[in-house]
């Protein structure tokens, strides 16, 4: 049986979908009744109906192949589609991230939701408007150029009382047109029709502060979260994790959980899980099961030893070496020469910790695997790739697997979200019943893929006038690609490696986008071997602004250090070294708003317990530009730092929804402060010791800023840039610069915990 979209929709008597109109789409969304061997073919990007569909009542549904991680993307996409279709925005529904219903647009990634993901939807909606106008003109009995569109209707220009609604025009039939597909999959996927999208000057819906449509349900408790998926006959599972990073299970004592009715153990290679009919029984079984683990020798360097380890460990890859086909892409010789000839060389090493996504709720996955097919429920950012990975793991063709994305705990990259769905798939296949895997808090913090620790070394060669004749930046750290940013193959997950798939062998760190232009500049990265090869809790992957938080911390602190050493205002030095007008604009906007004073940039000399200071930092990436001024209060007695006021200027090109972008910037500020002040994954010789919110604290409400001010530059002449990351990247540096301004102490290692700042102040 082939259960494609068309058939599903047809089975309800029409191809019409829409929230109000169609039970079919609801049934699809609910993922009803999985028969054996069902097929779930990919929707064809070439069919206009894959993107847009009009119900009899005129409700439009747009099918979005990315997902909204809570940044208001769903609303923004609805605005864009409504704009092109000349529709009221509340009559556009969005279906997102279901692999049966949406084309593979690559999932949530690199703040690409608007800057890439919206493009095919914009083009498809424009094309749909063209097709509807044409058909409408025919129905109204006038020439094609004698009609206009507004409010979801086609009307006669000469007599607007003659009009017909989109729903009536199609009367349940498909749009039935093809669009041109660029043959790409994932984020670059695009389609174009004959119609040209509107020009920005004509926008009525885009650019308006439309209320976020996901919000009411979230507050009323009615959001269809992944955690609420309850399938008939579903078993609850917990995974057993070893006491030592590299240990694997040898044996277990079934009698130790015999008192729990219905509890069972699944042991498959290195995977050890318990399942039970009721969730609390699964929790108890996981706690009670007696397991014998191997006792491998472990010699991790530990939280305090990790930076010396990175400095002394051999580099296994760098940009220009094995990662990119042996071609050297940088040459440090001119820089070394310039440094050798400099009147003065400044150097500094910056230390960046491992950090965890530590999602508000740890990974969940539900799988219903039948012989020959599988339906998976996941809150992954990349459902289409998880589908490929799980198909491979289950040895099924991809079109036998459907991944249904559901909203879940916020995720900020390749988090643990991709893990439990794979585990659920394995267990459901073993047990022949639907299985729900819920990770524990410990797993969500300690076993989540990490942002890699690194040491960033900076050097500047100064001439006798204080000019900069050489600039050196080396990022040396763990690879940010121990697992890939998409779980498109089993080895990208813990369970895949536990079942014998060999770890991905890729290396990547980061070289920041060129911002400051100095003669004889070299920027390069090197990676060191992972702490543990297989199924490691310390494996690294993308965490919001991958590797850039680290490199920008160094670069944006060091430019301040150079300004201090050469007697310059850090703002003036940045303005002189930037060539990009959009960087200069955000620097000027933020310092004007914050009242930057060039005469007050040396360390202040205030006495007393609580001193204040402020710092500046800049960022450029994802097609956006962001500059920040952070004002801190430092308690010199306790070492506690409070970022009291944060000012942001951001240029993300054309703004789709001014209310949403402000919320996104505020969220970036708070999460960025959390990473700057609180977050560090701790570990000892053999295991991760950050296992909960006490051992991996995040920014508390008490430490939220008093004030976040912002200037959002709306560049209607520039393409929309990504907004999900830029503000967060450089905030760590802005805080460090502010601490220096307040106390004269330079923090070159984050997070700036009270203990660390206190120690630095008394050093």
């Amino acid at each position, binding site marked *: 049986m082939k259960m494609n979209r068309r058939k599903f929709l047809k089975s309800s008597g029409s191809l019409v979908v829409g929230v109000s109109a169609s039970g079919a789409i609801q049934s699809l969304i609910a993922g009803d009744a999985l028969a054996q061997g069902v097929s779930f073919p990919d929707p064809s990007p070439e069919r206009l109906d894959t993107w847009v569909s009009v119900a009899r009542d005129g409700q439009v549904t747009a099918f979005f192949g990315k997902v909204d*991680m*809570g*940044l208001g993307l769903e609303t923004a996409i609805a605005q864009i589609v409504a704009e092109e279709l000349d529709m009221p925005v509340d009559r556009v529904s969005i279906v997102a991230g279901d692999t049966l219903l949406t084309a593979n647009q690559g999932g949530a990634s690199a703040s690409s939701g608007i800057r890439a993901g919206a493009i095919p939807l914009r083009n498809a909606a424009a094309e749909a408007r063209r097709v509807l106008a044409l058909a409408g003109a025919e129905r109204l009995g006038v020439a094609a150029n004698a009609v206009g569109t507004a409010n979801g209707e086609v009307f006669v220009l000469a007599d607007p009382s003659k009009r017909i609604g989109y729903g009536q025009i199609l009367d349940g039939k498909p749009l039935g047109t093809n669009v041109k597909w660029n043959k790409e999959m994932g984020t670059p996927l695009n389609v174009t029709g004959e119609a040209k999208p509107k020009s920005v000057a004509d926008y009525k819906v885009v650019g308006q502060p439309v*209320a*976020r449509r*996901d*919000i*009411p349900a*979230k*507050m*009323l*408790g*009615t*959001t269809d*979260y992944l*955690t*609420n998926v*309850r399938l008939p006959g579903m078993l609850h599972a917990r995974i057993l994790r070893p006491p030592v990073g590299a240990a694997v299970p040898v044996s277990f004592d079934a009698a130790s959980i015999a008192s729990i009715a219905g509890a069972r153990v699944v042991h498959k290679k290195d995977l050890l899980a318990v399942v039970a009919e*009721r*969730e*609390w029984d699964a*929790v108890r079984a996981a706690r009670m099961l007696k397991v014998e683990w191997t006792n491998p020798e472990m010699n991790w360097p530990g939280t305090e030893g990790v930076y010396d380890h990175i400095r002394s460990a051999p580099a296994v890859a760098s940009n220009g070496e094995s990662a990119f086909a042996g071609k050297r892409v940088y040459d440090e010789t001119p820089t070394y020469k310039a440094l050798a000839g400099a009147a003065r060389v400044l150097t500094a090493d910056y230390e960046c910790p491992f950090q965890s996504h*530590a*999602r*508000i*709720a740890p990974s969940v996955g539900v799988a219903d695997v039948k012989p020959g097919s599988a339906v998976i429920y996941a809150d992954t950012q990349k459902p289409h790739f998880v589908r490929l990975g799980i198909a491979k793991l289950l040895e099924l063709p991809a079109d036998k697997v459907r991944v249904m994305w559901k*909203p*879940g*705990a*916020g*995720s900020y990259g390749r988090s643990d979200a991709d893990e439990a769905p794979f585990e659920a798939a394995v267990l459901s296949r073993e047990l022949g019943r639907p299985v729900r895997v*819920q990770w*524990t*808090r410990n797993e969500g913090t300690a076993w989540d893929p990490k942002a890699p620790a690194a040491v960033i070394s900076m050097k500047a060669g100064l001439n006798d006038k204080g000019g900069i004749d050489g600039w050196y930046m080396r990022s040396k750290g763990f690879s940010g690609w121990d697992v890939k940013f998409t779980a498109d193959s089993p080895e990208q997950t813990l369970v895949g490696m536990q079942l014998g798939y060999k770890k991905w062998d890729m290396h990547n760190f980061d070289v920041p986008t060129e911002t400051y232009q100095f003669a004889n500049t070299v920027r390069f990265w090197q990676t060191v071997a992972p702490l543990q090869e297989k199924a490691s809790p310390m494996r690294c992957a993308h965490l919001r602004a991958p590797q850039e938080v680290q490199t920008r911390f160094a670069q944006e602190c060091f430019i301040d250090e150079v300004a201090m050493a050469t007697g310059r205002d850090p703002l003036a030095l940045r303005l002189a070294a930037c060539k990009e007008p959009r960087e200069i604009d955000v620097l000027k906007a933020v310092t004007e708003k914050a009242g930057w004073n060039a005469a007050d940039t040396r360390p202040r000399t205030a006495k007393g317990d609580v001193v204040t200071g402020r710092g500046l930092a800049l960022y450029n990436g994802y097609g956006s530009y962001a500059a920040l001024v952070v004002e801190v209060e430092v308690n010199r007695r306790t070492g506690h730092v409070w970022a009291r006021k944060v000012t942001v200027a951001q240029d993300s090109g054309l703004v789709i929804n001014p*209310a949403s972008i402000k*919320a996104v910037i*505020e*969220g*970036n*500020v*708070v*999460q*960025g*402060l*959390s990473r700057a002040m609180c977050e560090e994954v701790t570990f000892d010789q053999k295991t991760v010791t950050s296992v*909960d*919110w*006490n051992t991996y604290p*995040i*920014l*508390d*409400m*008490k430490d*939220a*800023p008093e004030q*976040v001010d912002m200037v959002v530059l709306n560049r209607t002449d520039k393409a929309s840039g990504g907004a999900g990351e830029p503000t967060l990247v450089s905030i760590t540096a802005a805080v460090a610069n502010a601490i220096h301004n307040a106390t004269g102490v330079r923090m070159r290692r984050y997070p700036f915990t009270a203990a660390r700042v206190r120690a630095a102040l008394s050093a």
Partner: protein
Amino acid sequence: MAKTTITVDGRAHEVAATPDTPLLYVLREELSLNGPKFGCGLAQCGTCTVLVDGRAVRSCVTPVSAVKGAVRTLDGLAAGGKPHPVQAAFIAEEAAQCGYCANGWIMSSIAMLEKNPKATDAQIREQLSGLKCRCGTHMAILRAVRRAAAQMA
């Protein structure tokens, strides 16, 4: 299995659960409620918060056998479809990204504001301290609680 009777959102339920079962599992599994959610199981985040006789309680560590009072949950707040003033304020301020944490903030704010509708900014920060929001919507949450306070006072 032991039967326990609990009153949730104004209705008495007889539930089958071992006495040590945390209230959270009973609410979600036996009563199919969706408001209280699992976040840590360690009383460290608040996503599982419910009100018991007006007090904010972390249901993930509260054995069902220890629940003596009336339980209120997020699911039961919008009486007759009308959102509670705190919910309305959180909606107006769009105080969520993923929204997974919203239950904790809303239920704890209700407990706070029902006792002290005139809570100052400092008191709000102090009393909501310990709840977690990983997405960093703190600023909007503070605005929402202040708005709710203004409405309830």
